[in-house]
Protein backbone atom coordinates (compact mmCIF):
# COMPACT_ATOMS: atom_id res chain seq x y z
CA UNK A 1 0.00 0.00 0.00
CA UNK A 2 1.34 3.39 -0.95
CA UNK A 3 -0.46 5.47 1.63
CA UNK A 4 -1.21 9.17 1.41
CA UNK A 5 1.04 11.98 2.54
CA UNK A 6 -0.61 14.09 5.25
CA UNK A 7 1.77 16.79 6.46
CA UNK A 8 5.09 15.04 6.94
CA UNK A 9 3.56 11.60 7.51
CA UNK A 10 2.43 8.78 5.22
CA UNK A 11 -1.00 7.61 6.34
CA UNK A 12 -2.48 4.32 5.22
CA UNK A 13 0.68 2.47 4.21
CA UNK A 14 -0.08 -0.46 6.54
CA UNK A 15 -3.88 -0.63 6.39
CA UNK A 16 -6.53 1.03 4.21
CA UNK A 17 -7.51 4.54 5.30
CA UNK A 18 -9.68 7.02 3.38
CA UNK A 19 -8.09 10.46 3.56
CA UNK A 20 -10.30 13.52 3.19
CA UNK A 21 -14.08 13.78 2.96
CA UNK A 22 -14.65 13.24 -0.75
CA UNK A 23 -14.75 9.44 -0.70
CA UNK A 24 -16.56 8.91 2.59
CA UNK A 25 -19.76 6.88 2.35
CA UNK A 26 -23.14 8.60 2.47
CA UNK A 27 -26.42 7.61 4.09
CA UNK A 28 -28.24 5.22 1.80
CA UNK A 29 -32.00 4.97 1.44
CA UNK A 30 -34.98 7.13 0.67
CA UNK A 31 -35.14 10.92 0.96
CA UNK A 32 -36.69 10.90 4.43
CA UNK A 33 -33.94 8.66 5.78
CA UNK A 34 -31.24 10.76 4.15
CA UNK A 35 -32.65 14.01 5.54
CA UNK A 36 -33.12 12.47 8.97
CA UNK A 37 -29.52 11.23 9.21
CA UNK A 38 -28.19 14.49 7.79
CA UNK A 39 -29.77 16.76 10.40
CA UNK A 40 -30.10 14.47 13.42
CA UNK A 41 -26.76 15.36 15.02
CA UNK A 42 -27.05 19.19 15.03
CA UNK A 43 -30.77 19.10 15.88
CA UNK A 44 -30.14 16.81 18.86
CA UNK A 45 -27.21 18.89 20.08
CA UNK A 46 -29.16 22.13 19.99
CA UNK A 47 -32.20 20.41 21.51
CA UNK A 48 -30.13 19.09 24.41
CA UNK A 49 -28.51 22.47 25.01
CA UNK A 50 -31.84 24.24 24.72
CA UNK A 51 -33.46 21.82 27.13
CA UNK A 52 -30.85 22.18 29.83
CA UNK A 53 -30.68 25.94 29.30
CA UNK A 54 -34.39 26.61 29.71
CA UNK A 55 -35.67 23.70 31.80
CA UNK A 56 -36.99 24.70 35.25
CA UNK A 57 -34.65 24.04 38.14
CA UNK A 58 -36.69 21.07 39.30
CA UNK A 59 -36.23 19.33 35.94
CA UNK A 60 -32.70 20.43 35.13
CA UNK A 61 -31.10 17.99 37.56
CA UNK A 62 -28.45 15.30 37.32
CA UNK A 63 -30.94 12.45 37.36
CA UNK A 64 -32.69 13.90 34.30
CA UNK A 65 -29.35 14.06 32.47
CA UNK A 66 -28.71 10.48 33.48
CA UNK A 67 -32.01 9.25 32.07
CA UNK A 68 -31.56 11.24 28.85
CA UNK A 69 -28.11 9.68 28.47
CA UNK A 70 -29.48 6.16 28.83
CA UNK A 71 -32.33 6.91 26.42
CA UNK A 72 -29.93 8.38 23.87
CA UNK A 73 -27.81 5.22 23.99
CA UNK A 74 -30.84 3.04 23.33
CA UNK A 75 -31.76 5.23 20.36
CA UNK A 76 -28.22 4.91 19.00
CA UNK A 77 -28.38 1.13 19.37
CA UNK A 78 -31.50 1.19 17.20
CA UNK A 79 -29.78 3.48 14.68
CA UNK A 80 -26.95 0.96 14.36
CA UNK A 81 -29.51 -1.41 12.82
CA UNK A 82 -31.24 1.22 10.71
CA UNK A 83 -28.22 3.03 9.29
CA UNK A 84 -25.04 1.01 9.89
CA UNK A 85 -21.75 2.46 8.75
CA UNK A 86 -20.05 -0.88 8.04
CA UNK A 87 -21.31 -4.45 7.94
CA UNK A 88 -18.06 -5.60 9.54
CA UNK A 89 -18.91 -3.48 12.59
CA UNK A 90 -22.29 -5.17 13.06
CA UNK A 91 -23.00 -5.75 16.74
CA UNK A 92 -23.17 -9.38 17.81
CA UNK A 93 -24.50 -10.74 21.07
CA UNK A 94 -21.00 -11.58 22.25
CA UNK A 95 -19.69 -8.09 21.53
CA UNK A 96 -22.72 -6.53 23.19
CA UNK A 97 -22.28 -8.66 26.33
CA UNK A 98 -18.53 -7.96 26.42
CA UNK A 99 -19.00 -4.22 26.01
CA UNK A 100 -21.72 -4.26 28.65
CA UNK A 101 -19.26 -5.78 31.08
CA UNK A 102 -16.95 -2.79 30.67
CA UNK A 103 -19.87 -0.37 30.98
CA UNK A 104 -20.90 -2.07 34.21
CA UNK A 105 -17.33 -1.81 35.54
CA UNK A 106 -17.51 1.94 34.92
CA UNK A 107 -20.73 2.31 36.87
CA UNK A 108 -19.68 0.12 39.80
CA UNK A 109 -16.10 -0.78 40.61
CA UNK A 110 -14.41 2.11 38.80
CA UNK A 111 -16.81 4.58 40.34
CA UNK A 112 -15.96 3.21 43.75
CA UNK A 113 -12.23 3.42 43.09
CA UNK A 114 -12.56 6.95 41.69
CA UNK A 115 -14.35 8.04 44.83
CA UNK A 116 -11.06 7.40 46.63
CA UNK A 117 -8.38 8.22 44.06
CA UNK A 118 -10.20 10.16 41.33
CA UNK A 119 -8.73 13.47 40.22
CA UNK A 120 -11.52 15.51 41.82
CA UNK A 121 -10.90 13.83 45.16
CA UNK A 122 -7.17 14.49 44.88
CA UNK A 123 -7.74 18.12 43.87
CA UNK A 124 -10.13 18.62 46.77
CA UNK A 125 -7.54 17.22 49.16
CA UNK A 126 -4.87 19.39 47.54
CA UNK A 127 -6.96 22.54 47.90
CA UNK A 128 -7.80 21.60 51.47
CA UNK A 129 -4.16 20.95 52.36
CA UNK A 130 -3.11 24.43 51.26
CA UNK A 131 -6.34 26.03 52.43
CA UNK A 132 -6.90 27.29 48.89
CA UNK A 133 -10.24 27.96 47.31
CA UNK A 134 -11.48 27.05 43.85
CA UNK A 135 -11.49 29.69 41.12
CA UNK A 136 -14.99 30.96 41.76
CA UNK A 137 -15.03 33.84 39.30
CA UNK A 138 -16.08 31.60 36.43
CA UNK A 139 -19.55 31.44 37.97
CA UNK A 140 -20.15 35.02 36.84
CA UNK A 141 -19.74 34.17 33.14
CA UNK A 142 -22.67 33.41 30.79
CA UNK A 143 -23.89 29.83 31.17
CA UNK A 144 -22.88 28.70 27.71
CA UNK A 145 -19.39 30.12 28.15
CA UNK A 146 -19.08 28.24 31.43
CA UNK A 147 -20.28 25.05 29.75
CA UNK A 148 -17.77 25.49 26.93
CA UNK A 149 -14.96 26.08 29.43
CA UNK A 150 -15.86 22.97 31.42
CA UNK A 151 -15.72 20.83 28.29
CA UNK A 152 -12.70 22.55 26.79
CA UNK A 153 -10.61 22.37 29.96
CA UNK A 154 -11.34 18.67 30.32
CA UNK A 155 -10.81 17.96 26.64
CA UNK A 156 -7.53 19.87 26.55
CA UNK A 157 -6.16 17.82 29.45
CA UNK A 158 -7.54 14.64 27.91
CA UNK A 159 -5.87 15.47 24.60
CA UNK A 160 -2.45 15.56 26.21
CA UNK A 161 -3.12 12.54 28.40
CA UNK A 162 -4.29 10.60 25.34
CA UNK A 163 -1.36 11.79 23.26
CA UNK A 164 0.95 10.87 26.11
CA UNK A 165 -0.53 7.40 26.11
CA UNK A 166 0.47 7.03 22.48
CA UNK A 167 3.90 8.57 22.95
CA UNK A 168 5.13 7.08 26.22
CA UNK A 169 5.41 3.31 26.52
CA UNK A 170 4.31 2.83 30.18
CA UNK A 171 1.10 4.76 29.48
CA UNK A 172 0.69 3.02 26.12
CA UNK A 173 0.65 -0.32 27.92
CA UNK A 174 -2.58 0.69 29.64
CA UNK A 175 -4.18 2.33 26.59
CA UNK A 176 -3.17 -0.20 23.92
CA UNK A 177 -5.83 -2.58 25.18
CA UNK A 178 -8.56 -0.21 23.97
CA UNK A 179 -7.02 -0.25 20.50
CA UNK A 180 -7.63 -3.98 20.09
CA UNK A 181 -11.30 -3.34 19.32
CA UNK A 182 -12.05 -4.14 15.68
CA UNK A 183 -15.54 -2.66 15.55
CA UNK A 184 -17.26 0.53 16.60
CA UNK A 185 -20.46 0.10 18.61
CA UNK A 186 -22.24 2.37 21.04
CA UNK A 187 -20.52 0.91 24.12
CA UNK A 188 -17.03 0.40 22.70
CA UNK A 189 -15.81 3.59 24.37
CA UNK A 190 -16.04 1.80 27.70
CA UNK A 191 -13.72 -1.01 26.63
CA UNK A 192 -10.28 -0.76 28.15
CA UNK A 193 -8.04 -1.64 31.02
CA UNK A 194 -9.37 -0.16 34.30
CA UNK A 195 -6.08 1.65 34.96
CA UNK A 196 -6.37 3.44 31.65
CA UNK A 197 -10.01 4.28 32.27
CA UNK A 198 -9.01 6.02 35.50
CA UNK A 199 -6.08 7.80 33.84
CA UNK A 200 -8.10 9.03 30.87
CA UNK A 201 -10.71 10.37 33.29
CA UNK A 202 -8.21 12.66 35.01
CA UNK A 203 -9.21 16.28 34.79
CA UNK A 204 -8.40 19.59 36.43
CA UNK A 205 -12.01 20.74 36.53
CA UNK A 206 -11.96 20.41 40.30
CA UNK A 207 -9.90 23.59 40.51
CA UNK A 208 -12.74 25.65 39.10
CA UNK A 209 -16.20 26.54 40.26
CA UNK A 210 -19.11 26.68 37.87
CA UNK A 211 -22.83 26.93 38.49
CA UNK A 212 -24.78 23.63 38.52
CA UNK A 213 -26.66 24.38 35.30
CA UNK A 214 -23.36 24.97 33.47
CA UNK A 215 -22.27 21.44 34.41
CA UNK A 216 -25.51 20.08 33.01
CA UNK A 217 -25.04 22.09 29.81
CA UNK A 218 -21.48 20.77 29.57
CA UNK A 219 -22.85 17.26 29.99
CA UNK A 220 -25.36 17.95 27.21
CA UNK A 221 -22.54 19.15 24.95
CA UNK A 222 -20.41 16.12 25.71
CA UNK A 223 -23.34 13.79 25.20
CA UNK A 224 -24.53 15.48 22.01
CA UNK A 225 -21.06 15.27 20.44
CA UNK A 226 -19.18 12.47 22.20
CA UNK A 227 -21.81 9.77 21.91
CA UNK A 228 -21.04 9.28 18.20
CA UNK A 229 -17.34 8.60 18.63
CA UNK A 230 -17.58 4.82 18.80
CA UNK A 231 -20.91 4.20 17.07
CA UNK A 232 -21.63 2.22 13.94
CA UNK A 233 -24.10 4.72 12.53
CA UNK A 234 -23.76 6.42 9.15
CA UNK A 235 -24.58 10.15 9.28
CA UNK A 236 -24.11 12.81 6.66
CA UNK A 237 -22.33 14.97 9.21
CA UNK A 238 -22.35 18.69 8.34
CA UNK A 239 -19.07 20.21 7.20
CA UNK A 240 -18.99 22.79 10.03
CA UNK A 241 -19.57 20.03 12.59
CA UNK A 242 -16.64 17.89 11.51
CA UNK A 243 -14.41 20.97 11.45
CA UNK A 244 -15.15 21.70 15.11
CA UNK A 245 -16.10 18.38 16.66
CA UNK A 246 -14.64 14.91 16.78
CA UNK A 247 -16.66 12.47 14.66
CA UNK A 248 -16.90 8.73 14.14
CA UNK A 249 -14.86 9.25 10.98
CA UNK A 250 -12.02 10.98 12.85
CA UNK A 251 -12.02 8.41 15.60
CA UNK A 252 -12.08 5.47 13.20
CA UNK A 253 -8.81 6.78 11.77
CA UNK A 254 -7.42 6.91 15.28
CA UNK A 255 -8.35 3.21 15.69
CA UNK A 256 -7.04 2.18 12.27
CA UNK A 257 -4.62 -0.73 12.00
CA UNK A 258 -2.31 1.74 10.29
CA UNK A 259 0.26 2.89 12.85
CA UNK A 260 0.67 6.45 11.58
CA UNK A 261 -3.09 6.92 11.32
CA UNK A 262 -3.54 5.79 14.92
CA UNK A 263 -1.26 8.62 16.05
CA UNK A 264 -3.85 11.25 15.17
CA UNK A 265 -7.19 12.67 16.37
CA UNK A 266 -6.53 12.45 20.10
CA UNK A 267 -9.16 14.86 21.38
CA UNK A 268 -12.45 13.62 22.76
CA UNK A 269 -14.87 16.37 21.76
CA UNK A 270 -13.16 19.29 20.03
CA UNK A 271 -11.20 18.13 16.99
CA UNK A 272 -9.96 21.70 16.60
CA UNK A 273 -7.54 20.93 19.43
CA UNK A 274 -5.95 18.36 17.10
CA UNK A 275 -6.01 20.92 14.31
CA UNK A 276 -4.21 23.37 16.64
CA UNK A 277 -1.42 20.90 17.35
CA UNK A 278 -1.15 19.35 13.87
CA UNK A 279 -2.44 15.90 14.76
CA UNK A 280 -5.78 16.03 12.95
CA UNK A 281 -6.35 13.70 10.01
CA UNK A 282 -9.73 14.02 8.25
CA UNK A 283 -11.11 10.83 6.76
CA UNK A 284 -12.31 7.37 7.74
CA UNK A 285 -11.10 3.80 8.28
CA UNK A 286 -13.00 0.53 8.43
CA UNK A 287 -10.20 -1.88 9.31
CA UNK A 288 -9.57 -1.32 13.00
CA UNK A 289 -7.50 -2.95 15.71
CA UNK A 290 -4.00 -4.16 16.46
CA UNK A 291 -1.93 -7.15 15.42
CA UNK A 292 -3.93 -7.70 12.26
CA UNK A 293 -7.25 -7.47 14.08
CA UNK A 294 -6.61 -10.03 16.81
CA UNK A 295 -9.39 -10.01 19.38
CA UNK A 296 -8.31 -9.63 22.97
CA UNK A 297 -10.26 -11.48 25.65
CA UNK A 298 -11.44 -9.70 28.79
CA UNK A 299 -8.91 -11.64 30.83
CA UNK A 300 -6.04 -10.56 28.60
CA UNK A 301 -7.29 -6.97 28.58
CA UNK A 302 -7.19 -6.93 32.37
CA UNK A 303 -3.69 -8.42 32.60
CA UNK A 304 -2.00 -7.07 29.48
CA UNK A 305 -0.38 -3.92 30.97
CA UNK A 306 1.18 -6.05 33.70
CA UNK A 307 2.26 -9.03 31.58
CA UNK A 308 3.64 -6.84 28.81
CA UNK A 309 5.19 -4.47 31.33
CA UNK A 310 6.91 -7.40 33.04
CA UNK A 311 8.18 -8.79 29.72
CA UNK A 312 9.51 -5.41 28.62
CA UNK A 313 11.20 -4.76 31.98
CA UNK A 314 12.78 -8.22 31.95
CA UNK A 315 14.07 -7.76 28.39
CA UNK A 316 15.44 -4.34 29.22
CA UNK A 317 17.18 -5.74 32.31
CA UNK A 318 18.67 -8.63 30.35
CA UNK A 319 19.89 -6.30 27.62
CA UNK A 320 21.42 -3.97 30.21
CA UNK A 321 23.26 -6.86 31.85
CA UNK A 322 24.48 -8.13 28.49
CA UNK A 323 25.88 -4.70 27.64
CA UNK A 324 27.58 -4.22 31.00
CA UNK A 325 31.37 -4.73 30.75
CA UNK A 326 32.73 -7.86 32.48
CA UNK A 327 34.69 -7.09 35.65
Amino acid sequence: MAGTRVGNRIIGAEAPVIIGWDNIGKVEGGPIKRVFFSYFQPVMLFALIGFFYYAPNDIAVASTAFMIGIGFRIVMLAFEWVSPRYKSWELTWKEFATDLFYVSLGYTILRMVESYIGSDVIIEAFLGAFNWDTFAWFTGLPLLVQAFLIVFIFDFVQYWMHRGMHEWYPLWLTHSVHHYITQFNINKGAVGNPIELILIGIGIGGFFDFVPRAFLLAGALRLGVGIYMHTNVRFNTPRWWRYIFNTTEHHSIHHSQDYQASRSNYSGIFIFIDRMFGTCVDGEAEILGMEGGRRMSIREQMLYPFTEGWKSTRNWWQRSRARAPAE
Partner: protein
Amino acid sequence: MRFFDWIWHIRGRLPLQPGQTSEEAFDRLVPMFEEQGTSYQRSDGTLIFSKKDQAAQDQMSIFDGGVLAIEPGEPTPSLTYNLKSRALLACFIAPLIFIAFAQFSIGLSALYAGSESGDRTAERGAEDTAEEEEEEAEIRLHPIDRWLGAPEPKQPGEDEEDDATEARAASDVRGERADETDGDATDEDEEEDGPRHSPGPAYVFAAIFAAVYLGGRVLEDWLIKRRFRRRLFDEEPAPGSS
Protein backbone atom coordinates in the same frame (compact mmCIF):
# COMPACT_ATOMS: atom_id res chain seq x y z
CA MET B 1 -22.64 -32.45 34.07
CA ARG B 2 -25.19 -32.87 31.32
CA PHE B 3 -27.88 -31.45 33.64
CA PHE B 4 -26.33 -28.04 33.75
CA ASP B 5 -23.85 -27.83 30.88
CA TRP B 6 -26.69 -26.47 28.71
CA ILE B 7 -25.65 -23.17 30.29
CA TRP B 8 -22.65 -22.92 27.96
CA HIS B 9 -23.40 -25.69 25.43
CA ILE B 10 -25.67 -25.34 22.43
CA ARG B 11 -26.81 -28.61 20.93
CA GLY B 12 -29.03 -29.30 17.99
CA ARG B 13 -30.00 -31.61 15.17
CA LEU B 14 -30.73 -30.77 11.55
CA PRO B 15 -31.93 -33.42 9.04
CA LEU B 16 -29.98 -33.38 5.78
CA GLN B 17 -31.66 -33.17 2.40
CA PRO B 18 -32.58 -36.48 0.77
CA GLY B 19 -29.53 -37.90 -0.97
CA GLN B 20 -27.09 -35.52 0.74
CA THR B 21 -24.01 -37.38 1.98
CA SER B 22 -21.90 -36.45 4.99
CA GLU B 23 -19.03 -35.43 2.68
CA GLU B 24 -21.28 -33.07 0.75
CA ALA B 25 -22.70 -31.66 3.95
CA PHE B 26 -19.27 -30.92 5.43
CA ASP B 27 -18.04 -29.47 2.15
CA ARG B 28 -20.79 -26.91 2.49
CA LEU B 29 -20.10 -26.23 6.18
CA VAL B 30 -16.31 -26.03 6.08
CA PRO B 31 -16.13 -22.36 4.91
CA MET B 32 -17.68 -21.41 8.25
CA PHE B 33 -14.56 -22.71 9.96
CA GLU B 34 -12.01 -21.06 7.73
CA GLU B 35 -11.80 -17.98 9.89
CA GLN B 36 -8.95 -16.25 11.68
CA GLY B 37 -8.12 -18.09 14.93
CA THR B 38 -10.09 -21.22 14.00
CA SER B 39 -8.63 -24.70 13.57
CA TYR B 40 -10.58 -27.83 12.68
CA GLN B 41 -10.20 -31.53 11.95
CA ARG B 42 -12.53 -33.43 9.69
CA SER B 43 -12.74 -37.20 9.56
CA ASP B 44 -15.36 -39.90 8.96
CA GLY B 45 -18.51 -37.90 9.36
CA THR B 46 -17.18 -35.76 12.21
CA LEU B 47 -15.81 -32.23 12.37
CA ILE B 48 -14.08 -30.98 15.50
CA PHE B 49 -13.13 -27.32 15.75
CA SER B 50 -11.63 -24.93 18.24
CA LYS B 51 -11.24 -21.16 18.23
CA LYS B 52 -8.83 -18.79 19.92
CA ASP B 53 -9.01 -14.98 19.88
CA GLN B 54 -11.69 -15.23 17.24
CA ALA B 55 -12.52 -11.99 15.47
CA ALA B 56 -15.68 -10.07 16.27
CA GLN B 57 -16.56 -10.41 12.58
CA ASP B 58 -16.51 -14.21 12.81
CA GLN B 59 -20.15 -15.36 12.56
CA MET B 60 -19.38 -18.14 15.04
CA SER B 61 -17.26 -16.00 17.36
CA ILE B 62 -19.44 -16.84 20.35
CA PHE B 63 -18.25 -20.47 20.21
CA ASP B 64 -14.84 -21.61 21.40
CA GLY B 65 -15.06 -25.17 20.18
CA GLY B 66 -17.38 -28.00 19.35
CA VAL B 67 -18.18 -31.16 17.49
CA LEU B 68 -20.36 -31.62 14.41
CA ALA B 69 -21.32 -35.10 13.29
CA ILE B 70 -23.49 -36.72 10.66
CA GLU B 71 -25.58 -39.46 12.22
CA PRO B 72 -27.48 -42.02 10.15
CA GLY B 73 -31.24 -41.87 10.40
CA GLU B 74 -34.52 -42.37 8.61
CA PRO B 75 -35.56 -41.01 6.22
CA THR B 76 -32.33 -38.96 5.96
CA PRO B 77 -29.14 -38.65 8.01
CA SER B 78 -28.92 -35.70 10.39
CA LEU B 79 -26.31 -33.13 11.33
CA THR B 80 -25.90 -33.05 15.08
CA TYR B 81 -23.83 -30.40 16.80
CA ASN B 82 -22.55 -29.72 20.28
CA LEU B 83 -20.97 -26.28 20.59
CA LYS B 84 -19.49 -24.72 23.69
CA SER B 85 -19.25 -21.04 24.54
CA ARG B 86 -17.26 -19.47 27.35
CA ALA B 87 -19.02 -16.18 26.61
CA LEU B 88 -22.36 -17.71 27.55
CA LEU B 89 -20.87 -19.18 30.72
CA ALA B 90 -19.28 -15.85 31.68
CA CYS B 91 -22.55 -14.03 31.08
CA PHE B 92 -24.38 -16.60 33.21
CA ILE B 93 -21.93 -16.01 36.06
CA ALA B 94 -21.85 -12.20 35.67
CA PRO B 95 -25.02 -11.56 37.74
CA LEU B 96 -23.46 -13.44 40.64
CA ILE B 97 -20.33 -11.30 40.39
CA PHE B 98 -22.33 -8.09 40.49
CA ILE B 99 -24.49 -9.30 43.36
CA ALA B 100 -21.28 -10.07 45.22
CA PHE B 101 -20.00 -6.60 44.41
CA ALA B 102 -23.26 -5.06 45.68
CA GLN B 103 -22.79 -6.92 48.95
CA PHE B 104 -19.20 -5.74 49.11
CA SER B 105 -20.23 -2.12 48.61
CA ILE B 106 -22.85 -2.46 51.36
CA GLY B 107 -20.21 -3.89 53.68
CA LEU B 108 -17.74 -1.17 52.80
CA SER B 109 -20.33 1.53 53.38
CA ALA B 110 -21.23 0.08 56.76
CA LEU B 111 -17.56 -0.03 57.65
CA TYR B 112 -17.13 3.55 56.48
CA ALA B 113 -20.19 4.78 58.36
CA GLY B 114 -19.07 3.00 61.52
CA SER B 115 -15.57 4.38 61.49
CA GLU B 116 -16.44 7.94 60.59
CA SER B 117 -19.74 8.64 62.28
CA GLY B 118 -18.07 9.58 65.56
CA ASP B 119 -15.58 11.86 63.91
CA ARG B 120 -18.24 13.47 61.77
CA THR B 121 -20.49 14.29 64.73
CA ALA B 122 -17.64 16.10 66.39
CA GLU B 123 -16.66 17.89 63.23
CA ARG B 124 -20.10 18.72 61.99
CA GLY B 125 -20.60 21.77 64.17
CA ALA B 126 -17.47 23.43 62.91
CA GLU B 127 -18.13 22.33 59.33
CA ASP B 128 -21.67 23.68 59.36
CA THR B 129 -20.49 27.09 60.43
CA ALA B 130 -17.82 27.14 57.75
CA GLU B 131 -20.24 25.89 55.12
CA GLU B 132 -22.83 28.44 56.02
CA GLU B 133 -20.30 31.20 55.57
CA GLU B 134 -19.20 29.70 52.28
CA GLU B 135 -22.68 29.20 50.99
CA GLU B 136 -23.79 32.72 51.65
CA ALA B 137 -22.36 33.84 48.31
CA GLU B 138 -25.34 34.46 46.06
CA ILE B 139 -25.34 32.96 42.55
CA ARG B 140 -26.28 35.65 40.06
CA LEU B 141 -27.37 35.04 36.52
CA HIS B 142 -25.29 36.81 33.88
CA PRO B 143 -27.23 39.61 32.11
CA ILE B 144 -26.97 37.75 28.80
CA ASP B 145 -28.60 34.68 30.34
CA ARG B 146 -31.29 36.86 31.93
CA TRP B 147 -31.93 38.46 28.55
CA LEU B 148 -32.15 35.02 26.90
CA GLY B 149 -34.67 33.93 29.52
CA ALA B 150 -32.75 31.28 31.46
CA PRO B 151 -34.39 30.39 34.79
CA GLU B 152 -32.96 32.06 37.89
CA PRO B 153 -30.53 29.66 39.59
CA LYS B 154 -31.29 28.06 42.89
CA GLN B 155 -29.48 29.78 45.70
CA PRO B 156 -27.16 27.80 47.98
CA GLY B 157 -29.11 25.94 50.61
CA GLU B 158 -32.35 26.30 48.70
CA ASP B 159 -32.37 22.68 47.66
CA GLU B 160 -30.73 19.58 49.02
CA GLU B 161 -29.69 18.30 45.63
CA ASP B 162 -26.26 19.56 44.75
CA ASP B 163 -26.20 19.35 41.00
CA ALA B 164 -22.74 20.83 40.66
CA THR B 165 -21.26 18.12 42.82
CA GLU B 166 -23.25 15.49 40.98
CA ALA B 167 -22.33 16.69 37.55
CA ARG B 168 -18.70 17.13 38.52
CA ALA B 169 -18.67 13.63 39.94
CA ALA B 170 -19.47 12.32 36.50
CA SER B 171 -16.36 10.80 35.06
CA ASP B 172 -15.57 11.73 31.53
CA VAL B 173 -14.09 8.78 29.74
CA ARG B 174 -13.43 9.09 26.04
CA GLY B 175 -16.12 11.73 25.73
CA GLU B 176 -18.91 9.35 26.49
CA ARG B 177 -19.59 9.34 30.15
CA ALA B 178 -20.57 12.94 30.76
CA ASP B 179 -24.15 11.82 31.13
CA GLU B 180 -23.28 9.41 33.88
CA THR B 181 -24.33 11.01 37.09
CA ASP B 182 -25.10 9.08 40.20
CA GLY B 183 -28.78 9.55 40.58
CA ASP B 184 -28.80 7.62 43.84
CA ALA B 185 -26.56 9.73 45.97
CA THR B 186 -28.27 13.04 45.62
CA ASP B 187 -29.32 13.53 49.17
CA GLU B 188 -26.72 15.33 51.19
CA ASP B 189 -27.75 13.73 54.47
CA GLU B 190 -27.65 10.28 52.94
CA GLU B 191 -24.20 10.96 51.61
CA GLU B 192 -22.94 11.86 55.05
CA ASP B 193 -24.75 9.35 57.23
CA GLY B 194 -25.99 6.63 54.92
CA PRO B 195 -24.29 4.36 52.44
CA ARG B 196 -21.34 5.94 50.72
CA HIS B 197 -21.44 3.39 47.91
CA SER B 198 -24.85 2.52 46.63
CA PRO B 199 -25.33 -1.15 45.68
CA GLY B 200 -28.09 -0.08 43.27
CA PRO B 201 -26.04 -0.01 40.03
CA ALA B 202 -24.55 -3.43 40.79
CA TYR B 203 -28.02 -4.92 41.32
CA VAL B 204 -29.24 -3.29 38.12
CA PHE B 205 -26.35 -4.76 36.13
CA ALA B 206 -26.89 -8.17 37.73
CA ALA B 207 -30.45 -8.09 36.41
CA ILE B 208 -29.32 -6.80 33.00
CA PHE B 209 -26.76 -9.59 32.63
CA ALA B 210 -29.37 -12.19 33.61
CA ALA B 211 -31.64 -10.87 30.86
CA VAL B 212 -28.75 -10.67 28.38
CA TYR B 213 -27.84 -14.28 29.16
CA LEU B 214 -31.38 -15.51 28.56
CA GLY B 215 -31.65 -13.50 25.37
CA GLY B 216 -28.26 -14.75 24.14
CA ARG B 217 -28.95 -18.38 24.97
CA VAL B 218 -32.13 -18.33 22.89
CA LEU B 219 -30.81 -16.05 20.14
CA GLU B 220 -27.53 -17.88 19.51
CA ASP B 221 -29.29 -21.26 19.51
CA TRP B 222 -31.63 -19.95 16.79
CA LEU B 223 -28.91 -18.13 14.84
CA ILE B 224 -26.52 -21.07 14.56
CA LYS B 225 -29.30 -23.39 13.47
CA ARG B 226 -30.29 -20.87 10.80
CA ARG B 227 -26.69 -20.51 9.62
CA PHE B 228 -26.20 -24.27 9.35
CA ARG B 229 -29.50 -24.60 7.50
CA ARG B 230 -28.59 -21.85 5.05
CA ARG B 231 -25.24 -23.45 4.36
CA LEU B 232 -26.60 -26.95 3.95
CA PHE B 233 -29.64 -26.08 1.89
CA ASP B 234 -28.28 -23.30 -0.32
CA GLU B 235 -30.24 -20.66 1.51
CA GLU B 236 -27.24 -18.37 1.96
CA PRO B 237 -28.75 -14.99 1.02
CA ALA B 238 -25.72 -12.86 0.31
CA PRO B 239 -21.97 -12.97 0.99
CA GLY B 240 -21.13 -11.66 4.43
CA SER B 241 -24.72 -11.71 5.59
CA SER B 242 -25.54 -13.11 9.01
